[in-house]
């Protein structure tokens, strides 16, 4: 019952969500984005010896889809995220800057520089 009600609400909001996609597409701000199936696997452990089912379809933290945006600032990205109709029904959107290079490398360089400064 709850699910039915939810499905109805989603039916009402799904159309706007699609047009949001199209709108962003037209403005040239969106690169490919897709929905993800609700099933999957988690691989962990040395040589990936643990393969478990997951994430759970009803999980609050599960990722349902993604959109890569071609915008310059966090503010622009947040504004686009805020225009998602799913928010009103309990969805949330994680907004993350794509890195030029691996943040690990950057952190290593910073540490090396700090070390160098410390020894001067």
């Amino acid at each position: 019952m709850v699910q039915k009600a939810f499905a109805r609400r989603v039916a009402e909001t799904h159309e706007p969500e699609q047009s949001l996609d199209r709108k962003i597409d037209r403005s040239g701000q969106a690169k490919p984005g897709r929905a993800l199936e609700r099933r999957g696997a988690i691989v962990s452990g040395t040589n990936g010896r643990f393969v478990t089912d997951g994430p759970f379809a009803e999980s609050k933290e599960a990722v349902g889809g993604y959109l890569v945006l071609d915008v310059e600032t966090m503010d622009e990205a947040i504004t686009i995220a805020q225009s998602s109709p799913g928010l009103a029904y309990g969805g949330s959107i994680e907004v993350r800057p794509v890195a030029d290079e691996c943040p690990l490398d950057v952190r290593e360089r910073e540490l090396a520089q700090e070390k160098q400064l410390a020894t001067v």
Partner: protein
Amino acid sequence: MNTQNHNGYILLFRGNDWLKNLSSEEKQKVTDQWMAWFRRLTDEGKAVAGNPLEREGKIVSGKNRVVSDGPFAESKEAIGGYFLLDVATMEEAVAIAQECPGLPYGARVEVRPVAAECPVASELKHEAQFANA
């Protein structure tokens, strides 16, 4: 689980708390291995996109569209990056995930099939068919 999927698979690299236990040399080693791994998958035509994410970001949620800071720095669940794979089966995608150089140190890889259409939309279609039958 091993049905064909022509939309490909995504690998989500979860957790970056495992990194803090590594020495600089180990971090460098893992990073180099990771880059070589991605280059090889790209050369083989199996990886079509991939990006690391910055360790900062925001969460937008709720009716009021509230913006809050996310715990991305040292979290077990935080996503550190992704690869988009052009392979046809879950089995192949899992086999690639098992090559991840971070696994021996505690990294976890989430493997998800990319959907042809939004799963919510296909569920609605299914429900409508069921109701009409």
